[in-house]
C-alpha cells in the first residue's frame, strides 16, 4: 500500500480559535504516517454568513479553494464541520446546476474542479486508514473513559450532500472512539443543534440549546464530549460555565476535539495536543481515569 497523503484545508477557525484542533490533527496524521500538506493561499469558505447572504459568493469561495487545491496532490482533508459542509455543498450544487457553475467560473475566472474528493478526518480514519490499523497504532488506550460523541447539525446533514454516514443515526465517530479504546454512550442529543452562530447575536438561544446537549450527555453518564466542529466546541466549552450559572446546575464536562483524544491514545504528549487551551480543564478527569 502506498502511503496515504492529503491536501489539507484547515479553514479559518483552525488558524485562530480552534488552533488546538489544527495542532492535534497534524500530530495525529504525523504519528499515523499519513501525509498532510496545507493548500497554499487557501481562503475562507464563507461559512454560514456567506451562504445566507449571497449564494454565488458562497459557491465561488469553495470553488476557489477547490481550484487552489489543484496545487497539492491527494484527496482534500477537512477538519471543520462547517468548511466540510460548504465544500460538499458547492460540489453538490455545481455538479448539478450548469447555470450556477458558469456564473461561478466567471466569478473565479477559472474552470470549476469538482473531481477532487473532499473528506472529513473521520472518513480518512475509518475508510482510508482503517479502524483495525488505527486500533493497532494505539499506544495508550483510553480505557475507562466514557465519551459522548457529538455530531451537531452539519456533519451528516442534509441527506445526499456530505454522505459521511447515516444522516439521523450515524456511528462513524463512535467507531473511531471505540477503536482507540474509549467507551461510547448512546445519548439523545447527538445530532441536535448547539445554537451555532447565535452565540454572537442571541446568546440565550445558545444557552438553552447547548444546555440541553450538556444535560443529555451528563444524564447518559458521559465523562466528556467529543466534537468535530469549532463552533460546537466554542458553545459547549467556552459557554459551559455561563450555562451552569443560568440553569443553576453543574456539568464539568471537558469538551475535546476528536483528534485530541485520538492523539492521546496514539501516545502524543499532552502539551502537543493543545489541551491547555480548553476552558473546562480535563486534568481532573485525566487524573481520575489515569490518563497522561
Amino acid at each position: 500500500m502506498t502511503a496515504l497523503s492529503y491536501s489539507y484545508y484547515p479553514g479559518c477557525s483552525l488558524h485562530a480559535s480552534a488552533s488546538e484542533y489544527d495542532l492535534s490533527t497534524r500530530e495525529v496524521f504525523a504519528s499515523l504516517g499519513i501525509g498532510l500538506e496545507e493548500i497554499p493561499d487557501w481562503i475562507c469558505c464563507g461559512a454560514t454568513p456567506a451562504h445566507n447572504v449571497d449564494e454565488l459568493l458562497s459557491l465561488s469561495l469553495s470553488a476557489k479553494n477547490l481550484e487552489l487545491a489543484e496545487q497539492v496532490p491527494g484527496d482534500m482533508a477537512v477538519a471543520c464541520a462547517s468548511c466540510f459542509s460548504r465544500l460538499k455543498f458547492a460540489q453538490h450544487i455545481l455538479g448539478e446546476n450548469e447555470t450556477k457553475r458558469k456564473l461561478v467560473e466567471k466569478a473565479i475566472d477559472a474552470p470549476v474542479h469538482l473531481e477532487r474528493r473532499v473528506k472529513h478526518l473521520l472518513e480518512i480514519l475509518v475508510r482510508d486508514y482503517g479502524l483495525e490499523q488505527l486500533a493497532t497504532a494505539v499506544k495508550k488506550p483510553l480505557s475507562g473513559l466514557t465519551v459522548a460523541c457529538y455530531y451537531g447539525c452539519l456533519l451528516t446533514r442534509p441527506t445526499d450532500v456530505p454522505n459521511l454516514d447515516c444522516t439521523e443515526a450515524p456511528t462513524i465517530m463512535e467507531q473511531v472512539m471505540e477503536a482507540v479504546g474509549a467507551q461510547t454512550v448512546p445519548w439523545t442529543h447527538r445530532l441536535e443543534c448547539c445554537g451555532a452562530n447565535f452565540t454572537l447575536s442571541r446568546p440565550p438561544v445558545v444557552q438553552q440549546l447547548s444546555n440541553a446537549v450538556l444535560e443529555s450527555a451528563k444524564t447518559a453518564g458521559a465523562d466528556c464530549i467529543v466534537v468535530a466542529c469549532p463552533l460546537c466546541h466554542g458553545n459547549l466549552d467556552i459557554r459551559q460555565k455561563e450555562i451552569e450559572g443560568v440553569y443553576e446546575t453543574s456539568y464539568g464536562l471537558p469538551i475535546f476535539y476528536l483528534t485530541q483524544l485520538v492523539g492521546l491514545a496514539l501516545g502524543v504528549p499532552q502539551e502537543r495536543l493543545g489541551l491547555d487551551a480548553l476552558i473546562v480543564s480535563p486534568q481532573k478527569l485525566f487524573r481520575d481515569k489515569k490518563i497522561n
Partner: protein
Amino acid sequence: MSRIGVFICHCGENISRTVDVEQVAAQAALMPGVAFAVDYKYMCSDPGQNLVKNAITEHRLTHVVVAACSPRMHERTFRKAVEQAGLNPFLCEMANIREHCSWVHEDREEATDKAIEIVGMLVERVKKNRVLPTITVPVTKRALVIGGGIAGIQAALDIADAGHQVVLVEREPSIGGHMAQLSETFPTLDCSQCIMTPKMVDVANHPNITLHTYSEIEQVDGYIGNFQITVRKKARSVDEHKCTGCGVCMTKCPQKKIPNSFDCNLGTRTAIYVPFPQAVPNVPVIDRENCTMFKSGKCGVCQKACGPGAVDFEQQDQLIVEPVGAIVVSTGFELYRITEKTKGSPIKGYGEFGHGKIPDVIDGMTFERLASASGPTGGKIQRPSDGKEPKQVVFIQCVGSRSREKGISYCSKVCCMYTAKHTMLYHHKVHDGQAYVFFMDARVPGKSYDEFWRRAIEDEEAVYIRGMVSRLYQKGDKIVVMGSDISVGVQVEIEADLVVLATAVQPQKGADLLAQKLGISYDKYNFYSEAHAKLRPVECATAGIYLAGACQGPKDIPDTVSQASAAAAKVMTLFAKDKLEREPIVARVKESGCVGCFACKKVCAYGAIEEKEIRDRQGNLVKVVAYVNPGVCAGCGTCQATCPSKSVELDGYTDEQIVAMIEAL
C-alpha cells in the same frame, strides 16, 4: 404486388402536437407499395376503425400499417379490425410514433422526419409478413391462488363458486393473513374477526377448494391454460388427516415462552402451536427451531398426549404437482421494519426513532393486537414495557412512506385511515387519555372516509398536528417526541407514554423471488406490475397470471376485495372457453439448416424447444433437430439471435424483415 394502407393517428393531440401528421400521410403515400395513406384524430375509435375497414375493401389493400401508439397498447385492436375486413390479422403492423417519437421529442420538424422514417421501416417489414393461422391451446379449468389473506380468500371463493376447481396455497400455518390480526376495521368499526373468520371457514368447507397451508411455490412450468405448479408442502410434523384440533398437545408442550409473531411478539406461544384460536385449518404445526424434541431429541410430550396419534416427528416436506390454467397472485404486504437496515439497500431506516430499542415505541400492527379482543391483553390498551395504561399516546404517520430521502417515495395509502381508527379505539377504551397525531396530509378519499377522519378529530378529540417528528427518546418512563407544528411554525415536544408508528406498507419478503419463478415483472420496491395501470389493472403482462391485493401496491380491505373479485372474473373469462387462442408470433426451425447443436434450447427461457428426430422412409434416423412447441413459445426471439446456422426465425421478425427495415432508413 403489395397494396399497403397506412393509417396515421393524431392520438388527440398526443402525436399531432409534435408530429405533422398530414405531412407523414403525404410522404407515406409516395412509398413504394403503398396504395393508400390517411390521417385521423382517433384511429382507435369506432369511426377510426371503420376508416381502416372501409379502406381495405375500397382500395383492395393487402397489408396495413397503423402509425399510432405502442403495439402494446392497440395492436390487438387494429388486428381485430383488419380481421373483420377480411384480412389476416397478422398482415397488420403498428408503427409506434407516439412513445418512440412524439412523446420524446420537442422539435416538430425533426420529429416529423423521424415519424416518416418509422412508417417507412414498418412498410418494408409488413410487406414480408406471412399469413399466420391462430394457434389454439387447451385450457385446464383449474386455478391456483397464491396467498391466503383476504385477497386470496375472496378470489378463491369467487372462482370456486363459479364451479371451477381452485388450489389455494398459503405460506403460514393458517389462512387469514393480516386481516385476521386486525382489531376493528374502518370506516365502520366492525370487528375484523367477525367478517373474516366465516370466510376462512367457507374456504375450508368448499368442495371446489384444495387448501395447502404451510406450503410454498417451488416451481412454475408451462404457460397460460397449461401451467404445472410444484408446491412444497412443508413438514408440519402433525398429520392433518388424523388431527382433531383438540389442542391437548399445546397445553402439554413445555416450551411456552416463544414470542408469538401473530401477536407481533407481544404474547407467547408453545413450540407446537396454531397461530391463533380461529385458525383454518385448526391443525397445529411444530416450530422445529424451538422444539425440544428437534433440538435435543428428548421430549415427545405432545406425541404421548395426542389421542389420535397425529404428531409425526419423522414427517418430511412433500412436493405436490398441481396442473392449473390460471394463477392469481395475492401475496400481500408486510410492514416496513424500520430498525432493520439491509446493507446496500436504498432504504435507510429510522434509527432516530428508537424502534426496537424503546419498548413503548410500537408499529401500527402491534397496536392492532393491543386493541384486539383476541389479542394478548384481551383488548386492554396496555403498553408493552410495564403493562400500564398509557394516558398520552402519540401516533406518527408516514414513517417510511413518502420520503425520497429515506428511500420510499410512495404513499402507503392505508395509514391515514387506520391511524384515525386507532385514535378512536384508544379513546373508546381510555376515556381520560389523549391521542396526538403527527401527519403530513390527511389522505382520506373513499366512501365515508373523510367523515370517519373528521369524526376522530371532532367527536373523539384526537389532536392532529401537521408536521413531522425528528426524534424520539426515552426520559424516565416517558418517551420524548420532538416534532414540529408547521401550521403555526413552532417546535413541539410531547412526553408520551406510548408512541405508535404508521410504518410503510412493503411487499412480502421474497416477493421478487416468487415473481422470478412466475415470470412476472415487479417494480423497484418489489410490488408486482400490472399490464396496464388503467385498462388492465389486475392482469400481469405474462398471460394467465392475475394480481389481487397489496402485492400490487398498498391497498385497504375494500379495494383488495374488489380487486380480488375482478381477478376472479378474469379467470372465469379465461375458463369460459374450452380452447384458448394464442398469438402465432412464434419461432420456426428451418429443419434443413439445423445442425442440432441446441444452443437455442439452452437460451430458451420458456422451455419451448424440444428435440425432434428426422427419419428417412426406411425409418433410419437421419438427424436430430430442434422443434419449437408453438403452445409454449413466447415469441421473444432469443433463439433466433443465438442460432449459429441462422436456422430459427421468428415470424414477423425474420432476418430478412429486419434487414429490410434497416435498408429503409
